[in-house]
């Protein structure tokens, strides 16, 4: 690994500022909470602003195919802010889909990318949120003369997607297809999610017509790249979420009085928060390292992503759990956002490979073999 840049550039800081301002204005936690039990749990208007005005939907897609021409470093900064706000927008599915489409930018991908970029259409990849970059190519959907049959479960953003990239096997050859969800033979079923701010479901396909994007070893490579990118970017989302949980807990510990003192003056609290700060600082270093490796397409990108995921997914859960515990009773109530962060952190921990799965990968990459 050549020396990574672990800091934020001025451009990245400016990007962060604009995203944070917009989210503060349009996506405070009360609105996220109010929305989560309605028919519109996602804020698609906000998404169109993020995509259309700030160009975030296709941030890492090259300009010549309709993206913003930035890199995973900028994408990761956006993810931090979205994590901070537990923003209910189809970000993760978009990262998956745009990564795939940018890799096979010939028709019909080239047509769709600009529409994803401006937020007018939403796409995702029909892989399980619980799969990882190390999972074998999915075989639950079969392709036959351009029509798809089978099911894919835990597909993130499924209820809001207009298009799906579907991994399917065509006479045993791994392939990626582009599917319009309004086509014949497509049935979508939403799952009730633990994380109310990130939606997913199962899609059943019964002879649904689709266009082939890529097949063979290239299909496997592209899907793996998409999962790797999403996993790397997710580490930054987890870092942003953890930072928010820390900040909000510190703030609360300064305003909450018990025994005639701010609870933040007790060492039992101070030391836990100091440890959490240490954890968040460490998470940030690993997440920046992963984003930088993805951006440079470094030879050790897999290791950088696995390391970031192995560290950040558990740390984000710890932060969300400490956030709840140190808020005491109020943290246990529906009207407090602690549960939104807990749900997001715990679900994100399972997404794109658990920490344990990533550690296994690290073991293989750095030659620490299993017994």
């Amino acid at each position, binding site marked *: 690994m050549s020396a990574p840049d672990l800091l934020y550039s001025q451009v990245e800081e400016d990007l962060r500022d604009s995203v944070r301002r917009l989210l503060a204005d349009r996506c405070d936690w009360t609105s996220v909470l109010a929305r989560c039990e309605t028919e519109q749990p996602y804020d698609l208007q906000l998404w169109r602003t993020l995509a259309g005005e700030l160009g975030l939907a296709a941030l890492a897609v090259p300009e010549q195919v309709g993206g913003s021409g930035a890199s995973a470093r900028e994408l990761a900064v956006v993810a931090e802010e979205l994590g901070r706000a537990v923003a209910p927008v189809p970000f993760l599915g978009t990262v998956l889909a745009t990564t795939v489409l940018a890799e096979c930018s010939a028709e019909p991908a080239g047509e769709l990318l600009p529409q994803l970029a401006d937020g007018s259409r939403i796409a995702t990849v029909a892989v399980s949120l619980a799969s990882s970059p190390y999972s074998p190519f999915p075989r639950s959907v079969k392709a036959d003369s351009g029509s798809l049959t089978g099911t894919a479960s835990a597909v993130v953003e499924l209820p809001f997607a207009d298009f799906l990239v579907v991994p399917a096997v065509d006479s045993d050859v791994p392939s990626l297809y582009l599917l319009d969800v309004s086509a014949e033979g497509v049935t979508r079923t939403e799952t009730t999610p633990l994380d109310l701010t990130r939606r997913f479901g199962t899609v059943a396909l019964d002879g649904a017509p689709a266009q082939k994007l890529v097949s063979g070893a290239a299909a496997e490579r592209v899907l793996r790249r998409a999962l790797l990118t999403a996993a790397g970017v997710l580490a930054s989302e987890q870092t942003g979420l953890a930072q928010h949980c820390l900040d909000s807990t510190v703030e609360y510990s300064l305003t909450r009085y018990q025994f005639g003192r701010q609870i*933040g003056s007790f060492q039992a609290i*101070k*030391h836990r928060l*100091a440890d959490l700060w*240490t954890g968040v600082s460490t998470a940030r270093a*690993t997440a920046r390292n992963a984003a930088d490796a993805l951006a440079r397409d470094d030879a050790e990108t897999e290791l950088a992503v696995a390391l970031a995921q192995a560290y950040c997914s558990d740390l984000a859960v710890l932060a969300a759990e400490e956030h709840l515990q140190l808020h005491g009773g109020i943290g246990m109530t529906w009207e407090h956002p602690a549960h939104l962060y807990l749900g997001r952190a715990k679900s994100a921990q399972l997404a794109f490979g658990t920490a344990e799965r990533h550690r296994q990968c690290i073991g293989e990459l750095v030659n620490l073999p299993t*017994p």
Partner: protein
Amino acid sequence: MDADELRQRVREFLAEHDPKRMDRLEFLRARFDAGLAWVHFPTGLGGLGAPRELQTVVEAEFAKAGAPDNRPRENSIGLGMAAPTILRFGNDEQRRRFLRPLWTGEEIWCQLFSEPGAGSDLAALSMRAVRDGDEWVIDGQKVWTSLAHRAQWAILVARSDPDQPKHKGLTYFICDMTAPGVEVRPLRQITGEAEFNEVFLSGVRIPDSHRLGEVGQGWQVAMGTLMNERVAIGGSNIARESGMIGIIAQTWRDRPEVRTSGLHDRLLRLWVEAEATRLTSQRLRQQLAVGSPGPEGSAVKLSFARLNQEISGLELEMLGEEGLAYDDWTFRRPERADFTARGPGYRYLRAKGNSIEGGTSEILRNVIAERVLGLPQEIRTDKDVPWKELPR
């Protein structure tokens, strides 16, 4: 002064001073006099008033020419702590007298701060300094003093006024370690060896001209010294798998017979944490290089202490029967601390000190909570009370 000009200066210096032919000390003295010792120091005191980060340029040039260095690891307290303190708080005479032989390594320094009754609470120290004409008379005991048995000089904090509150009655001195009344005794540790010393001072006389800073200003001077300790810890880039994690990873690779699935999971967890902590310290150095030092230093120190302890503990478990043995209990005095030297039993025991030395992990958590997160300070009952009335 930029990097190219500095390189040019070094080349000109080397053209006139051939390191292969000159006596080592003469060469180092000449290098100091040319302002190429520590370039960020002022002209006339071994420097050129250049930016601190250009030092690496100079070191690289000298190393390339095969020039002898000043053996910085043998005088770490002198270079890292005493020198910046003398520069900042010393008068011209003191700077001229002490800095040159300190840099060349002719005079080794140690630090007389901690006491048996003043560890985390350094300001509570009780070594007495009583004024006697142009001299001070020092009595008391210091502890955890590395290099005391080899040092010519020490930086020393003592209590000059017990009637003042603890932070206000301290004065900072330069102490001659060869003066009558200085007794250095090795302090044997749980590893069997003595890296450190206890130092007893009985009626030691220090001339007032060896005082650093004003009478009663000792706490501020000492804080200046300890700040430098934090900067010094920044250090250079660390390679992946350096330190304890590299040793245990190699054992895993070399010896399939020690592998079990439980140990594997623990090893991978620690590998992840060690690598993540390494990146955190790399990020800290990148922040320092662009001039915005983050407070991550305390976090890195906390993490390394815990990791060293956990990794060295796991190593013993991995080794099974071998882990029952200890390489050597013979009492000895190592040249310098090396946490990873010797056998696994030694590493396990030595790592226990990592969460105590240089600020306990508990104090570091307070520092992070108060200075980084802005949480309330510990309730202090001792701040405004005359030192002599404090319970101890």
